[in-house]
Protein backbone atom coordinates (compact mmCIF):
# COMPACT_ATOMS: atom_id res chain seq x y z
CA UNK A 1 0.00 0.00 0.00
CA UNK A 2 2.80 2.36 0.92
CA UNK A 3 4.86 2.90 -2.20
CA UNK A 4 8.44 3.87 -1.92
CA UNK A 5 9.24 7.46 -2.70
CA UNK A 6 12.61 8.01 -4.24
CA UNK A 7 14.21 11.00 -2.72
CA UNK A 8 17.29 12.49 -4.18
CA UNK A 9 19.16 15.51 -3.15
CA UNK A 10 19.77 17.47 -6.31
CA UNK A 11 21.29 20.67 -5.09
CA UNK A 12 22.50 21.38 -1.65
CA UNK A 13 24.49 24.54 -1.50
CA UNK A 14 26.93 24.80 1.37
CA UNK A 15 25.62 27.03 4.09
CA UNK A 16 26.80 28.45 7.36
CA UNK A 17 24.78 27.38 10.37
CA UNK A 18 24.95 30.75 12.08
CA UNK A 19 22.80 33.61 10.99
CA UNK A 20 20.08 31.35 9.63
CA UNK A 21 16.61 31.25 11.10
CA UNK A 22 15.88 28.62 13.72
CA UNK A 23 12.67 27.77 15.54
CA UNK A 24 12.86 26.77 19.20
CA UNK A 25 10.35 23.98 19.78
CA UNK A 26 11.13 23.36 23.41
CA UNK A 27 8.99 26.25 24.64
CA UNK A 28 5.38 27.11 23.99
CA UNK A 29 5.60 29.06 20.79
CA UNK A 30 3.33 32.04 21.13
CA UNK A 31 4.94 33.78 18.21
CA UNK A 32 4.96 31.35 15.29
CA UNK A 33 7.45 31.99 12.50
CA UNK A 34 5.85 33.82 9.57
CA UNK A 35 6.61 32.02 6.33
CA UNK A 36 5.36 31.95 2.76
CA UNK A 37 4.51 28.78 0.86
CA UNK A 38 4.53 29.79 -2.79
CA UNK A 39 2.27 27.50 -4.87
CA UNK A 40 4.51 24.99 -6.62
CA UNK A 41 5.01 26.05 -10.24
CA UNK A 42 3.65 23.71 -12.91
CA UNK A 43 3.69 23.90 -16.72
CA UNK A 44 0.47 23.59 -18.67
CA UNK A 45 1.22 20.20 -20.15
CA UNK A 46 1.96 18.65 -16.73
CA UNK A 47 -1.14 20.33 -15.34
CA UNK A 48 -3.37 18.66 -17.93
CA UNK A 49 -1.74 15.26 -17.44
CA UNK A 50 -2.17 15.32 -13.64
CA UNK A 51 -5.69 16.66 -13.92
CA UNK A 52 -6.53 13.58 -16.01
CA UNK A 53 -4.90 11.14 -13.55
CA UNK A 54 -5.74 12.73 -10.21
CA UNK A 55 -8.72 14.91 -11.05
CA UNK A 56 -6.93 17.92 -9.55
CA UNK A 57 -6.81 21.08 -11.64
CA UNK A 58 -3.54 22.41 -10.24
CA UNK A 59 -1.57 19.76 -8.38
CA UNK A 60 1.25 22.23 -7.64
CA UNK A 61 -1.12 24.46 -5.72
CA UNK A 62 -2.73 21.45 -3.98
CA UNK A 63 0.62 20.19 -2.68
CA UNK A 64 1.52 23.62 -1.33
CA UNK A 65 -1.84 23.73 0.50
CA UNK A 66 -0.90 20.49 2.30
CA UNK A 67 2.43 22.01 3.33
CA UNK A 68 0.73 25.18 4.55
CA UNK A 69 -1.79 23.24 6.60
CA UNK A 70 0.80 20.94 8.18
CA UNK A 71 3.09 23.78 9.19
CA UNK A 72 0.21 25.78 10.59
CA UNK A 73 -1.10 22.79 12.59
CA UNK A 74 2.28 22.38 14.26
CA UNK A 75 1.71 25.74 15.91
CA UNK A 76 5.31 26.72 15.20
CA UNK A 77 4.75 28.42 11.86
CA UNK A 78 2.38 31.02 10.53
CA UNK A 79 1.90 30.53 6.78
CA UNK A 80 1.03 33.87 5.20
CA UNK A 81 -1.95 34.42 2.95
CA UNK A 82 -0.95 33.69 -0.64
CA UNK A 83 -3.08 36.59 -1.90
CA UNK A 84 -0.33 38.87 -0.58
CA UNK A 85 2.48 37.25 -2.60
CA UNK A 86 4.06 39.60 -5.12
CA UNK A 87 6.24 37.19 -7.07
CA UNK A 88 4.96 34.52 -9.43
CA UNK A 89 5.66 30.89 -8.39
CA UNK A 90 7.85 29.95 -11.39
CA UNK A 91 10.05 33.02 -11.05
CA UNK A 92 10.26 32.79 -7.27
CA UNK A 93 11.49 29.22 -7.60
CA UNK A 94 14.39 30.32 -9.80
CA UNK A 95 15.50 33.20 -7.63
CA UNK A 96 13.22 34.92 -5.13
CA UNK A 97 13.28 38.71 -4.95
CA UNK A 98 13.94 38.75 -1.22
CA UNK A 99 12.79 42.40 -0.77
CA UNK A 100 9.30 41.43 -2.03
CA UNK A 101 8.99 38.65 0.55
CA UNK A 102 10.48 40.82 3.29
CA UNK A 103 7.80 43.37 2.54
CA UNK A 104 5.05 40.92 3.52
CA UNK A 105 7.06 39.97 6.62
CA UNK A 106 7.91 36.41 5.56
CA UNK A 107 11.04 35.10 7.24
CA UNK A 108 11.18 31.88 5.26
CA UNK A 109 9.92 30.96 1.81
CA UNK A 110 9.13 27.60 0.22
CA UNK A 111 9.10 27.43 -3.56
CA UNK A 112 9.03 24.52 -5.96
CA UNK A 113 8.14 23.00 -9.27
CA UNK A 114 6.06 20.02 -10.37
CA UNK A 115 6.63 18.07 -13.58
CA UNK A 116 5.14 15.10 -15.34
CA UNK A 117 8.10 12.88 -16.23
CA UNK A 118 7.67 9.35 -17.67
CA UNK A 119 4.24 8.91 -16.06
CA UNK A 120 5.74 9.95 -12.74
CA UNK A 121 5.29 12.94 -10.50
CA UNK A 122 8.52 14.87 -10.07
CA UNK A 123 8.57 17.55 -7.41
CA UNK A 124 11.42 19.78 -6.46
CA UNK A 125 11.32 22.31 -3.69
CA UNK A 126 13.58 24.89 -2.08
CA UNK A 127 13.57 26.51 1.31
CA UNK A 128 14.85 30.08 1.45
CA UNK A 129 15.94 32.24 4.36
CA UNK A 130 14.51 35.65 3.48
CA UNK A 131 16.42 37.70 6.04
CA UNK A 132 19.79 36.13 5.21
CA UNK A 133 18.86 36.17 1.51
CA UNK A 134 19.93 32.62 0.74
CA UNK A 135 18.80 29.07 0.01
CA UNK A 136 18.65 26.75 3.02
CA UNK A 137 17.83 23.48 1.30
CA UNK A 138 16.75 22.01 -2.03
CA UNK A 139 15.36 18.55 -2.69
CA UNK A 140 13.61 16.64 -5.46
CA UNK A 141 11.31 13.62 -5.37
CA UNK A 142 10.01 11.29 -8.02
CA UNK A 143 7.06 9.05 -7.32
CA UNK A 144 3.80 7.69 -8.71
CA UNK A 145 1.22 10.49 -9.08
CA UNK A 146 -1.20 8.97 -6.53
CA UNK A 147 1.43 9.63 -3.86
CA UNK A 148 0.99 13.39 -4.23
CA UNK A 149 -0.33 13.94 -0.70
CA UNK A 150 2.67 12.13 0.76
CA UNK A 151 4.98 14.41 -1.23
CA UNK A 152 3.35 17.35 0.56
CA UNK A 153 3.90 15.64 3.90
CA UNK A 154 7.53 14.79 3.17
CA UNK A 155 8.28 18.38 2.14
CA UNK A 156 6.62 19.54 5.39
CA UNK A 157 8.83 17.15 7.36
CA UNK A 158 11.99 18.38 5.61
CA UNK A 159 11.11 22.02 6.27
CA UNK A 160 10.22 21.28 9.90
CA UNK A 161 13.48 19.42 10.38
CA UNK A 162 15.60 22.10 8.74
CA UNK A 163 14.01 24.89 10.78
CA UNK A 164 13.66 23.18 14.18
CA UNK A 165 16.59 20.77 14.12
CA UNK A 166 14.28 17.83 14.90
CA UNK A 167 12.55 15.28 12.70
CA UNK A 168 9.00 16.06 11.64
CA UNK A 169 5.89 13.91 12.01
CA UNK A 170 3.77 14.73 8.96
CA UNK A 171 4.40 11.70 6.75
CA UNK A 172 2.71 9.47 9.30
CA UNK A 173 -0.59 7.73 9.86
CA UNK A 174 -2.96 7.33 12.76
CA UNK A 175 -4.72 4.06 13.51
CA UNK A 176 -7.76 4.45 15.72
CA UNK A 177 -11.18 3.06 16.61
CA UNK A 178 -14.06 4.59 14.64
CA UNK A 179 -17.24 4.71 16.71
CA UNK A 180 -20.91 4.97 15.81
CA UNK A 181 -24.29 4.44 17.41
CA UNK A 182 -25.73 4.91 20.90
CA UNK A 183 -23.43 4.68 23.90
CA UNK A 184 -25.06 1.47 25.14
CA UNK A 185 -24.64 -0.30 21.78
CA UNK A 186 -21.55 1.35 20.29
CA UNK A 187 -20.31 -0.11 16.99
CA UNK A 188 -16.53 0.05 16.75
CA UNK A 189 -14.27 -0.47 13.75
CA UNK A 190 -10.54 -0.21 13.22
CA UNK A 191 -9.71 2.71 10.97
CA UNK A 192 -6.54 4.23 9.60
CA UNK A 193 -5.90 7.67 8.14
CA UNK A 194 -3.10 10.04 7.29
CA UNK A 195 -1.99 12.25 10.15
CA UNK A 196 -4.00 15.14 8.65
CA UNK A 197 -7.23 13.13 8.46
CA UNK A 198 -7.13 12.29 4.73
CA UNK A 199 -7.23 8.83 3.13
CA UNK A 200 -9.43 7.43 5.88
CA UNK A 201 -10.02 3.70 5.54
CA UNK A 202 -11.91 1.22 7.70
CA UNK A 203 -10.03 -2.02 8.42
CA UNK A 204 -12.80 -4.01 10.09
CA UNK A 205 -16.54 -4.14 9.44
CA UNK A 206 -17.85 -3.51 12.94
CA UNK A 207 -19.27 -7.01 13.46
CA UNK A 208 -17.27 -7.40 16.65
CA UNK A 209 -16.02 -4.99 19.26
CA UNK A 210 -12.43 -3.85 18.68
CA UNK A 211 -10.26 -1.75 20.99
CA UNK A 212 -6.79 -0.26 21.49
CA UNK A 213 -4.99 -0.73 18.13
CA UNK A 214 -1.22 -0.03 18.32
CA UNK A 215 1.34 0.26 15.56
CA UNK A 216 4.50 -1.69 15.30
CA UNK A 217 7.19 1.00 14.97
CA UNK A 218 9.13 -1.04 12.44
CA UNK A 219 6.53 -2.49 10.05
CA UNK A 220 2.96 -2.29 8.82
CA UNK A 221 1.68 -4.50 11.63
CA UNK A 222 -0.92 -3.53 14.17
CA UNK A 223 -1.88 -5.25 17.40
CA UNK A 224 -5.31 -4.75 18.94
CA UNK A 225 -8.04 -6.29 21.07
CA UNK A 226 -10.97 -7.96 19.33
CA UNK A 227 -14.10 -9.58 20.77
CA UNK A 228 -14.27 -11.99 17.81
CA UNK A 229 -16.70 -14.80 18.79
CA UNK A 230 -17.14 -13.00 22.12
CA UNK A 231 -13.65 -14.02 23.22
CA UNK A 232 -11.63 -10.88 24.01
CA UNK A 233 -8.15 -11.65 22.70
CA UNK A 234 -5.12 -9.79 21.41
CA UNK A 235 -4.81 -9.98 17.62
CA UNK A 236 -2.18 -9.14 15.09
CA UNK A 237 -3.16 -7.48 11.82
CA UNK A 238 -1.03 -6.92 8.75
CA UNK A 239 -2.46 -3.74 7.23
CA UNK A 240 -0.80 -4.43 3.87
CA UNK A 241 -2.39 -7.82 3.38
CA UNK A 242 -5.33 -7.72 5.78
CA UNK A 243 -4.24 -10.99 7.43
CA UNK A 244 -5.28 -11.36 11.06
CA UNK A 245 -4.25 -13.86 13.69
CA UNK A 246 -4.80 -14.31 17.40
CA UNK A 247 -1.69 -13.80 19.53
CA UNK A 248 -0.86 -16.81 21.68
CA UNK A 249 -3.05 -19.50 23.14
CA UNK A 250 -4.27 -18.07 26.43
CA UNK A 251 -7.20 -19.61 28.34
CA UNK A 252 -8.76 -16.22 29.11
CA UNK A 253 -8.88 -12.57 28.18
CA UNK A 254 -5.71 -10.99 26.77
CA UNK A 255 -5.72 -7.21 26.37
CA UNK A 256 -3.68 -3.98 26.47
CA UNK A 257 -1.20 -5.07 23.75
CA UNK A 258 1.82 -3.12 22.52
CA UNK A 259 4.87 -4.02 20.46
CA UNK A 260 8.39 -4.04 21.83
CA UNK A 261 10.54 -1.30 20.20
CA UNK A 262 12.23 -3.84 17.88
CA UNK A 263 8.79 -5.09 16.84
CA UNK A 264 9.63 -8.71 17.72
CA UNK A 265 7.50 -9.14 20.81
CA UNK A 266 4.03 -8.24 21.96
CA UNK A 267 3.60 -7.22 25.58
CA UNK A 268 0.08 -7.46 27.00
CA UNK A 269 -2.09 -8.32 29.99
CA UNK A 270 -3.62 -11.73 30.55
CA UNK A 271 -6.57 -11.89 32.94
CA UNK A 272 -7.54 -15.08 34.72
CA UNK A 273 -9.56 -15.73 37.87
CA UNK A 274 -9.86 -12.04 38.62
CA UNK A 275 -6.15 -11.31 38.34
CA UNK A 276 -4.38 -9.52 35.47
CA UNK A 277 -0.63 -9.93 34.96
CA UNK A 278 1.76 -8.84 32.23
CA UNK A 279 3.13 -11.28 29.66
CA UNK A 280 5.21 -11.07 26.52
CA UNK A 281 5.08 -13.26 23.45
CA UNK A 282 7.92 -13.51 20.96
CA UNK A 283 6.37 -13.35 17.49
CA UNK A 284 8.96 -15.65 15.86
CA UNK A 285 9.44 -18.36 18.47
CA UNK A 286 5.94 -17.96 20.04
CA UNK A 287 7.59 -18.27 23.45
CA UNK A 288 5.46 -16.72 26.19
CA UNK A 289 7.08 -15.12 29.25
CA UNK A 290 5.31 -14.04 32.38
CA UNK A 291 6.69 -10.66 33.47
CA UNK A 292 4.62 -9.79 36.56
CA UNK A 293 3.15 -12.12 39.16
CA UNK A 294 1.05 -10.21 41.62
CA UNK A 295 -2.57 -10.57 42.83
CA UNK A 296 -3.30 -6.95 41.75
CA UNK A 297 -4.36 -5.64 38.35
CA UNK A 298 -1.23 -5.10 36.25
CA UNK A 299 -1.97 -3.62 32.84
CA UNK A 300 -1.19 -0.99 30.15
CA UNK A 301 2.47 -2.04 29.70
CA UNK A 302 4.76 0.06 27.51
CA UNK A 303 8.47 -0.48 26.76
CA UNK A 304 11.16 2.17 26.96
CA UNK A 305 12.57 2.89 23.46
CA UNK A 306 15.78 0.96 24.26
CA UNK A 307 13.68 -2.04 25.34
CA UNK A 308 15.36 -2.24 28.76
CA UNK A 309 12.44 -1.08 30.89
CA UNK A 310 8.68 -1.45 31.04
CA UNK A 311 6.23 1.01 32.53
CA UNK A 312 2.76 -0.24 33.47
CA UNK A 313 -0.09 0.55 35.77
CA UNK A 314 -1.05 -1.49 38.79
CA UNK A 315 -3.36 -1.15 41.80
CA UNK A 316 -1.02 -3.11 44.08
CA UNK A 317 -0.83 -0.08 46.39
CA UNK A 318 -4.63 -0.10 46.66
CA UNK A 319 -5.19 2.35 43.78
CA UNK A 320 -4.12 2.59 40.17
CA UNK A 321 -0.55 3.97 39.97
CA UNK A 322 2.32 3.91 37.48
CA UNK A 323 5.27 1.58 37.97
CA UNK A 324 8.55 1.00 36.14
CA UNK A 325 10.51 -2.27 36.10
CA UNK A 326 13.33 -3.89 34.18
CA UNK A 327 12.11 -5.74 31.10
CA UNK A 328 12.75 -9.01 32.93
CA UNK A 329 10.16 -7.97 35.54
CA UNK A 330 12.76 -7.30 38.22
CA UNK A 331 13.09 -4.16 40.39
CA UNK A 332 9.51 -2.92 40.26
CA UNK A 333 9.32 0.70 41.41
CA UNK A 334 6.31 2.91 41.82
CA UNK A 335 6.91 6.28 40.15
CA UNK A 336 3.57 8.16 40.48
CA UNK A 337 2.99 9.73 43.88
CA UNK A 338 0.77 12.72 43.10
CA UNK A 339 -2.85 12.97 44.19
CA UNK A 340 -5.34 10.87 42.24
CA UNK A 341 -5.21 7.75 40.05
CA UNK A 342 -2.73 7.24 37.24
CA UNK A 343 -3.06 5.03 34.18
CA UNK A 344 -1.97 4.35 30.56
CA UNK A 345 1.75 5.16 30.88
CA UNK A 346 3.49 5.48 27.49
CA UNK A 347 7.18 5.94 27.13
CA UNK A 348 8.29 8.83 24.91
CA UNK A 349 10.23 7.86 21.75
CA UNK A 350 12.98 10.14 23.07
CA UNK A 351 13.14 8.01 26.22
CA UNK A 352 13.10 10.82 28.77
CA UNK A 353 9.39 11.12 29.59
CA UNK A 354 6.33 9.00 30.32
CA UNK A 355 2.95 10.34 29.25
CA UNK A 356 -0.08 9.24 31.25
CA UNK A 357 -3.76 9.70 32.06
CA UNK A 358 -4.60 10.98 35.52
CA UNK A 359 -7.95 10.98 37.29
CA UNK A 360 -8.34 13.36 40.18
CA UNK A 361 -11.48 14.80 41.78
CA UNK A 362 -13.71 13.87 38.87
CA UNK A 363 -11.43 15.33 36.17
CA UNK A 364 -9.19 13.59 33.69
CA UNK A 365 -5.77 14.92 32.77
CA UNK A 366 -3.16 14.08 30.17
CA UNK A 367 0.28 14.70 31.57
CA UNK A 368 3.95 13.79 31.44
CA UNK A 369 6.56 12.95 34.05
CA UNK A 370 10.19 11.95 33.94
CA UNK A 371 10.84 8.22 34.03
CA UNK A 372 11.68 8.36 37.75
CA UNK A 373 8.34 10.08 38.41
CA UNK A 374 9.76 13.55 38.99
CA UNK A 375 8.72 16.70 37.15
CA UNK A 376 5.03 15.85 36.71
CA UNK A 377 3.36 18.30 34.33
CA UNK A 378 -0.34 18.22 33.45
CA UNK A 379 -0.98 19.36 29.90
CA UNK A 380 -4.77 19.32 29.63
CA UNK A 381 -7.80 18.87 31.88
CA UNK A 382 -11.28 17.71 30.87
CA UNK A 383 -14.36 15.76 31.89
CA UNK A 384 -13.02 12.61 30.26
CA UNK A 385 -9.92 11.97 28.17
CA UNK A 386 -7.30 9.26 28.08
CA UNK A 387 -4.74 7.17 26.25
CA UNK A 388 -2.03 9.51 24.92
CA UNK A 389 0.13 8.31 22.01
CA UNK A 390 3.37 10.07 21.01
CA UNK A 391 4.22 11.59 17.64
CA UNK A 392 7.37 9.83 16.36
CA UNK A 393 9.53 12.85 17.27
CA UNK A 394 8.18 12.94 20.82
CA UNK A 395 6.88 16.51 20.54
CA UNK A 396 3.12 16.00 20.22
CA UNK A 397 0.59 13.74 21.95
CA UNK A 398 -2.62 12.48 20.40
CA UNK A 399 -5.40 11.21 22.70
CA UNK A 400 -9.18 10.95 22.79
CA UNK A 401 -11.76 12.91 24.68
CA UNK A 402 -15.38 12.12 25.44
CA UNK A 403 -18.03 14.66 26.25
CA UNK A 404 -20.38 14.35 29.18
CA UNK A 405 -23.97 13.40 28.42
CA UNK A 406 -26.92 15.39 29.72
CA UNK A 407 -29.47 14.00 32.20
CA UNK A 408 -31.19 12.04 29.44
CA UNK A 409 -27.90 10.42 28.49
CA UNK A 410 -27.71 12.46 25.26
CA UNK A 411 -24.96 14.57 23.75
CA UNK A 412 -22.21 11.98 23.91
CA UNK A 413 -19.30 12.22 21.51
CA UNK A 414 -15.75 10.88 21.32
CA UNK A 415 -13.07 12.77 19.38
CA UNK A 416 -9.33 12.71 18.79
CA UNK A 417 -7.28 15.65 20.05
CA UNK A 418 -3.64 16.56 19.95
CA UNK A 419 -1.51 18.77 22.16
CA UNK A 420 2.12 19.84 22.17
CA UNK A 421 4.40 18.61 24.87
CA UNK A 422 4.67 22.27 25.85
CA UNK A 423 0.97 22.27 26.79
CA UNK A 424 0.16 24.64 23.93
CA UNK A 425 -1.54 24.12 20.60
CA UNK A 426 -4.40 21.86 21.69
CA UNK A 427 -6.55 20.98 18.67
CA UNK A 428 -9.14 18.51 17.46
CA UNK A 429 -7.96 15.95 14.90
CA UNK A 430 -10.94 15.67 12.57
CA UNK A 431 -12.27 12.19 11.80
CA UNK A 432 -15.25 11.17 9.62
CA UNK A 433 -16.97 9.44 12.57
CA UNK A 434 -16.53 9.57 16.33
CA UNK A 435 -13.14 8.20 17.30
CA UNK A 436 -11.05 6.83 20.18
CA UNK A 437 -7.85 4.94 21.02
CA UNK A 438 -5.46 6.66 18.56
CA UNK A 439 -1.98 5.30 17.88
CA UNK A 440 0.59 7.28 15.91
CA UNK A 441 2.81 5.49 13.38
CA UNK A 442 6.50 6.16 12.97
CA UNK A 443 7.65 8.21 9.96
CA UNK A 444 6.80 6.31 6.77
CA UNK A 445 9.86 7.71 4.98
CA UNK A 446 13.08 8.94 6.43
Amino acid at each position, binding site marked *: MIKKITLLVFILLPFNAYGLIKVDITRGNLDPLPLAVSPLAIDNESKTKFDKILNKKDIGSEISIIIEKNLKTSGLFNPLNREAFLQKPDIANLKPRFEDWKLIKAQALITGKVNYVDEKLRVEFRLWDILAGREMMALAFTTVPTNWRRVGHIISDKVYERLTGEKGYFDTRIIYVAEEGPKTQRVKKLAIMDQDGFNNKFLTLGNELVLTPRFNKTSQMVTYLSYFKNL*PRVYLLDIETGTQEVVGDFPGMT*FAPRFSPDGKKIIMSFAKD*GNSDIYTMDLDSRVVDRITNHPS*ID*TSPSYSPDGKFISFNSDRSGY*QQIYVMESSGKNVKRISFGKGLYGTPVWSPRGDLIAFTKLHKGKFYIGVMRTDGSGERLLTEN*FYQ*EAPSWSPNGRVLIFYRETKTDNEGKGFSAKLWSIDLTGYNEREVKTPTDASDPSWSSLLSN
Partner: protein
Amino acid sequence: MEFNKIVKNALLIIVACLALSACATKKAGTGQMQGDVYTGKDTVEYLASGVPDRVFFATNESVLTTASRETLRKQAAWLRKNSKINIVLEGHADERGTREYNLALGERRANAAKDYLMTYGVSSDRISVLSYGKERPVDSGSNPLSWSKNRRSVTVKAN
Protein backbone atom coordinates in the same frame (compact mmCIF):
# COMPACT_ATOMS: atom_id res chain seq x y z
CA MET B 1 -46.17 0.04 31.65
CA GLU B 2 -44.11 3.17 30.88
CA PHE B 3 -46.90 5.39 32.15
CA ASN B 4 -47.13 3.44 35.40
CA LYS B 5 -43.43 3.88 35.92
CA ILE B 6 -43.68 7.61 35.40
CA VAL B 7 -46.56 7.87 37.85
CA LYS B 8 -44.63 5.77 40.35
CA ASN B 9 -41.55 7.94 39.96
CA ALA B 10 -43.62 11.09 40.31
CA LEU B 11 -45.14 9.72 43.51
CA LEU B 12 -41.67 8.87 44.80
CA ILE B 13 -40.55 12.42 44.10
CA ILE B 14 -43.55 13.82 45.94
CA VAL B 15 -42.88 11.53 48.90
CA ALA B 16 -39.23 12.48 48.85
CA CYS B 17 -40.14 16.17 48.73
CA LEU B 18 -42.48 15.84 51.68
CA ALA B 19 -39.81 14.04 53.62
CA LEU B 20 -36.98 16.36 52.77
CA SER B 21 -38.66 19.68 52.08
CA ALA B 22 -35.44 20.70 50.28
CA CYS B 23 -37.02 19.37 47.13
CA ALA B 24 -35.33 21.55 44.53
CA THR B 25 -31.84 20.29 45.29
CA LYS B 26 -32.71 16.59 45.53
CA LYS B 27 -33.12 14.27 42.59
CA ALA B 28 -35.38 11.27 42.48
CA GLY B 29 -32.38 9.03 41.95
CA THR B 30 -30.43 9.62 45.11
CA GLY B 31 -32.56 7.18 47.06
CA GLN B 32 -31.47 4.40 44.71
CA MET B 33 -27.91 4.27 45.96
CA GLN B 34 -26.33 3.27 49.22
CA GLY B 35 -22.93 4.87 49.41
CA ASP B 36 -22.27 4.68 45.69
CA VAL B 37 -23.64 1.18 45.18
CA TYR B 38 -26.82 0.97 43.16
CA THR B 39 -29.74 -0.48 45.13
CA GLY B 40 -32.64 0.21 42.73
CA LYS B 41 -34.37 -2.13 40.31
CA ASP B 42 -34.45 0.01 37.14
CA THR B 43 -32.20 -2.06 34.92
CA VAL B 44 -32.51 -5.40 36.71
CA GLU B 45 -33.85 -8.35 34.76
CA TYR B 46 -34.74 -11.75 36.16
CA LEU B 47 -33.37 -15.23 35.54
CA ALA B 48 -36.56 -16.60 37.11
CA SER B 49 -39.24 -15.23 39.34
CA GLY B 50 -37.54 -13.57 42.31
CA VAL B 51 -34.02 -14.25 40.98
CA PRO B 52 -32.39 -10.98 39.86
CA ASP B 53 -29.76 -11.34 37.11
CA ARG B 54 -27.24 -8.74 38.34
CA VAL B 55 -25.24 -7.40 41.24
CA PHE B 56 -23.70 -3.94 41.68
CA PHE B 57 -20.36 -2.65 42.92
CA ALA B 58 -18.85 0.44 44.52
CA THR B 59 -16.45 2.59 42.48
CA ASN B 60 -13.17 0.77 41.77
CA GLU B 61 -14.34 -2.15 43.93
CA SER B 62 -15.00 -5.81 43.29
CA VAL B 63 -16.13 -6.65 46.83
CA LEU B 64 -19.63 -8.15 47.00
CA THR B 65 -22.10 -6.24 49.13
CA THR B 66 -24.60 -7.93 51.45
CA ALA B 67 -27.34 -7.37 48.88
CA SER B 68 -25.15 -8.82 46.12
CA ARG B 69 -24.46 -11.93 48.13
CA GLU B 70 -28.16 -12.40 48.73
CA THR B 71 -28.85 -12.10 45.00
CA LEU B 72 -26.05 -14.56 44.17
CA ARG B 73 -27.35 -17.08 46.72
CA LYS B 74 -30.74 -16.94 44.95
CA GLN B 75 -28.97 -17.44 41.62
CA ALA B 76 -27.00 -20.37 43.03
CA ALA B 77 -30.15 -22.04 44.38
CA TRP B 78 -31.87 -21.59 41.03
CA LEU B 79 -28.81 -22.89 39.15
CA ARG B 80 -28.60 -25.97 41.38
CA LYS B 81 -32.23 -26.73 40.53
CA ASN B 82 -31.67 -26.10 36.82
CA SER B 83 -28.49 -28.08 36.39
CA LYS B 84 -28.61 -28.11 32.57
CA ILE B 85 -28.19 -24.35 32.36
CA ASN B 86 -24.74 -22.86 31.88
CA ILE B 87 -24.02 -19.19 32.45
CA VAL B 88 -21.76 -16.34 31.41
CA LEU B 89 -20.88 -13.76 34.04
CA GLU B 90 -20.46 -10.45 32.26
CA GLY B 91 -18.39 -7.96 34.24
CA HIS B 92 -18.74 -4.23 33.63
CA ALA B 93 -17.26 -0.93 34.79
CA ASP B 94 -18.48 2.65 34.60
CA GLU B 95 -17.02 5.21 32.18
CA ARG B 96 -14.89 6.91 34.85
CA GLY B 97 -11.73 4.89 34.35
CA THR B 98 -9.12 4.12 31.74
CA ARG B 99 -10.23 1.54 29.20
CA GLU B 100 -7.62 -1.12 29.92
CA TYR B 101 -7.87 -0.91 33.69
CA ASN B 102 -11.65 -1.20 33.36
CA LEU B 103 -11.33 -4.37 31.30
CA ALA B 104 -9.33 -5.89 34.17
CA LEU B 105 -11.79 -4.52 36.72
CA GLY B 106 -14.77 -6.03 34.87
CA GLU B 107 -13.00 -9.37 34.87
CA ARG B 108 -12.31 -9.07 38.58
CA ARG B 109 -15.97 -8.25 39.33
CA ALA B 110 -17.32 -11.15 37.29
CA ASN B 111 -14.87 -13.47 39.04
CA ALA B 112 -15.99 -12.22 42.45
CA ALA B 113 -19.52 -13.31 41.48
CA LYS B 114 -18.21 -16.59 40.06
CA ASP B 115 -16.32 -17.45 43.26
CA TYR B 116 -19.41 -16.80 45.32
CA LEU B 117 -21.63 -18.96 43.11
CA MET B 118 -19.05 -21.74 43.36
CA THR B 119 -19.02 -21.64 47.16
CA TYR B 120 -22.78 -22.14 46.93
CA GLY B 121 -22.44 -25.29 44.91
CA VAL B 122 -22.39 -24.20 41.26
CA SER B 123 -19.69 -26.06 39.36
CA SER B 124 -17.07 -23.92 37.65
CA ASP B 125 -17.55 -25.85 34.35
CA ARG B 126 -20.97 -24.25 34.09
CA ILE B 127 -19.61 -20.71 34.43
CA SER B 128 -17.63 -18.65 31.97
CA VAL B 129 -16.52 -15.10 32.53
CA LEU B 130 -16.50 -12.21 30.07
CA SER B 131 -15.37 -8.67 30.82
CA TYR B 132 -16.73 -5.78 28.79
CA GLY B 133 -14.91 -3.11 30.78
CA LYS B 134 -16.82 0.10 30.11
CA GLU B 135 -17.86 -0.89 26.58
CA ARG B 136 -21.47 -1.84 27.29
CA PRO B 137 -23.06 0.56 29.77
CA VAL B 138 -26.72 -0.16 30.47
CA ASP B 139 -27.36 3.52 31.22
CA SER B 140 -25.73 6.11 28.97
CA GLY B 141 -25.90 8.98 31.47
CA SER B 142 -22.82 10.76 32.81
CA ASN B 143 -23.87 11.07 36.44
CA PRO B 144 -23.33 9.12 39.68
CA LEU B 145 -26.63 7.22 39.45
CA SER B 146 -25.99 6.07 35.87
CA TRP B 147 -22.45 5.05 36.76
CA SER B 148 -23.73 3.01 39.71
CA LYS B 149 -26.05 1.03 37.40
CA ASN B 150 -23.14 0.34 35.06
CA ARG B 151 -20.77 -1.07 37.72
CA ARG B 152 -22.21 -4.56 37.58
CA SER B 153 -21.85 -8.26 36.99
CA VAL B 154 -24.70 -9.75 34.99
CA THR B 155 -25.50 -13.44 34.96
CA VAL B 156 -26.57 -14.45 31.46
CA LYS B 157 -27.87 -17.86 30.38
CA ALA B 158 -25.44 -19.38 27.90
CA ASN B 159 -27.73 -22.13 26.59
